[in-house]
């Protein structure tokens, strides 16, 4: 088939950030599917809670303090997270490096407290379905927390190498910021579900 030149793209930039970049959309896609997973797990909890009048099946109330501390830590971490985002948009390498170190630490901190959350549930996963659901919900979120923190640490190391100084990498930092927002946002409903719904009944 014959061709005729109709557009010259040579002046286009070679990277873009945020919704301009495919990676951002990919991240959004994964957030959508993981979010669906969270929603369904939460739905399963509510389904069981509504099926049994005696929910939470005579179990003691969970101690909400470790969970509340995690929540606060996560919310606080949003501030440096978004500062990091701005630096990444400006392609400022030093502030980005510092920001990533801070975010790695702020990722590890809630994980440490999370360790104490499991015993604070005051029930085991194999005691009854209520216990199972609490552990499942907490476990599901913890998995996301761990993978995202791992991701952040790897990215931090990467930004300290010679590969760091490229537009693409700054875009990756932006996507990492975006994903952390998701990890924080998905925690809030789970936190309410685990610690506060049992207190309603």
């Amino acid at each position, binding site marked *: 088939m014959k061709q005729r030149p109709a*557009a010259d793209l040579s002046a286009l930039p070679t990277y873009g950030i945020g919704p301009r970049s495919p990676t951002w959309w990919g991240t959004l896609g994964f957030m959508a599917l993981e979010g669906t997973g969270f929603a369904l797990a939460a739905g399963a909890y509510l389904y069981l809670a509504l099926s049994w009048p005696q929910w939470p099946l005579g179990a003691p109330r969970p101690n909400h303090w470790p969970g509340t501390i995690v929540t606060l830590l996560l919310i606080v971490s949003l501030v440096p997270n978004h500062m990091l985002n701005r630096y990444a948009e400006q392609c400022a390498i030093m502030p980005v490096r510092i920001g990533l170190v801070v975010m790695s630490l702020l990722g590890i901190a809630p994980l440490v407290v999370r360790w104490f959350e499991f015993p604070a549930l005051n029930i085991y996963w*194999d005691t009854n379905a209520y216990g199972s659901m609490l552990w499942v919900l907490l476990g599901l979120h913890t998995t996301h927390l761990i993978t995202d923190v791992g991701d952040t640490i790897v990215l931090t190391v990467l930004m300290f190498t010679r590969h760091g100084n490229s537009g693409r990498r700054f875009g990756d930092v932006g996507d990492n910021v975006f994903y952390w927002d998701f990890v924080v946002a998905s925690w809030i409903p789970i936190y309410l579900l685990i610690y506060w719904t049992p207190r309603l009944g």
Partner: protein
Amino acid sequence: MSSSDLTSERDLVPQATPKGDLAPERDGPRDTGLDDATLHRWLERTWRTKPGIIGALSSVDHKVVARRYLVTAFVFLCLGGLNAVAMRIQLSGPQRGLIGPDLYNQLFTMHGVTMMFLFAVPIVQATGIYLVPLMVGTRNIAFPRLNAFSYWIYVSGGIFAWASFALSMAPDVGWFAYVPLSGPEFGPGKRADVWAQMITYTEVSSLAVAVATIVTVFKQRAPGMSLDKIPLYVWAMLVTSFVVVFAMPAVMITSTFLILDRLVGTHIFNPAEGGDALLFQHLFWFFGHPEVYIIFLPATGMVSSIISAFARRPVFGHLGLVLSLIAVGFLSFGLWVHHMFATGLPKLGASFFTASSMLIAIPNGLQIFCWLATLSDGRPVIRTPLLFVFGFVFTFVIGGLTGVMVASVPLDLQVHDTYFVVAHFHYVLIGGSVFPLLGAAYFWLPKLTGRMMSERLGRWHFWMAFIGFNAAFFPMHLVGLWGMPRRVYTYPAELGWGNINLFITAGAAVFFLSFVLFTFNMLHGALRGAPAGNNPWDAGTLEWATTSPPPSYNFARIPVVTHAEPLWAEREALPVATGLRVDARELVISTVAEARPDIREKSATPSIWPLFAAIAVGATFLYSIFTPWAVVWGALPIAITLIGWFWPKGDPEDEE
């Protein structure tokens, strides 16, 4: 919008000017002004899959991955089909002693699981992996390494399931594996775990493909392919991918819950400890119903493509078809309870699901009407692909209408879990999806192989398939109404189901032979067929603009799209874009709605790491059937392989 608008100054000014500490952008030779031969040499060097075994295992070319997917899925169709043949022989007469209950239960479970998870979903996605980048005019799928990874995960899942079948350890609980039958108490051994874990494999792979497809369609469309110019097939794949994204997590949750109940003693589905067996059904069907549209919607896209090529006109009601695809996608999430009418749910609630199930017939009907309207201009060009489309309308409408019958709560109470339902879903699955797929094979395989399949054999194939299929499955409606439940390995003689089952088996045998003929025709065509040329059917969409088979880089120059049927609209010369680098894998990223060119982005280079990552992930899944600690031990190798995957290697594609 005319093609010159695309390059106006305003569009091309980068929105965020590079600043800060950015390393200076490196540049390389561009395609502007290169003659065809030089351009081909450059692009081939940059985009090819490297020779040798490592090269093959590292390939990230969407066409290579799709071909593997297609072949593998076809193999699973044959295996699943052979399961079916074995079942049909056992059922051909009352009290046949060929196959005992234990084997029979594995057979129908493996048949269902193989057909749904290892054949139908992968094959429609694979077709998309092949065609979508070509149809939207780009050089590779988005996230090509993720795409390669998805294939490896998919084959591991398939091999895993079939290896356990060979060891007589295959699941025997049906393709939806209801608890408590599959639970810790009544499902001893590892059989139900095999079910749950193989779901996880296929899950991960189809989610990955779905995300890659969505991003390809959103961001990699050729300049000018605004939303209204996207081909219907691409729309179908886009909607399907969205359905995958929101449906598959449900079965992921289901199978994870099941594994937890079985492995670590949680009680999520155990009614004795505050769990509930029906919760499993809700979760499963929240996935399971959309699943059937995941299989069906891509087929409607194929039908649209084939019809427009042979009716020699754009499909009537393009917008209506797009809207009905979207409507079906949405509605498919509101129907799941119609699989549970016999569980004794409150009558009023159940009636709601009757209404929603009826509702989905409206967009489905609209699709049928639009196709009929497209065909109604006059006698179309009748070739094998179109014959299969005719077969599709004939059978799918029967299946859809029996769907409407079973959507009625009271009526369903008589036919639920009988051969009537078996008939319904084979009519929609085979009539609605396999027939279009067969038509698509005749239509698009020439693009893959560069050679035509035999038209004469194609017609024989069609008539054998059509007659065999209807002879096998139509009588199932009846035997279901006469009281024959599904999933029985035998039945007593005095119920009078013997003759009709023999007839069904005979039909299935004819249908089987039609597949043998098809296999022959494919192989013969691929090796000996007449050369196809770029556009054997004189069709209008972009995949026909390039050679058959397409080069590794798909298009020497990225097309600029001015019409929904670009090849029909631009018969003299196809407008193309210039200015891309030829020494790096550059492709055009465009804006979501209008497809204005926005970025020249690099596509990932070949890598062996996706394979390693798949091995690490696959081994972890496998091991986790035996101990929950597998997840902990597997984390390290998975992390290592993922770092290997993402760590930049200094290619131009990795930087910038």
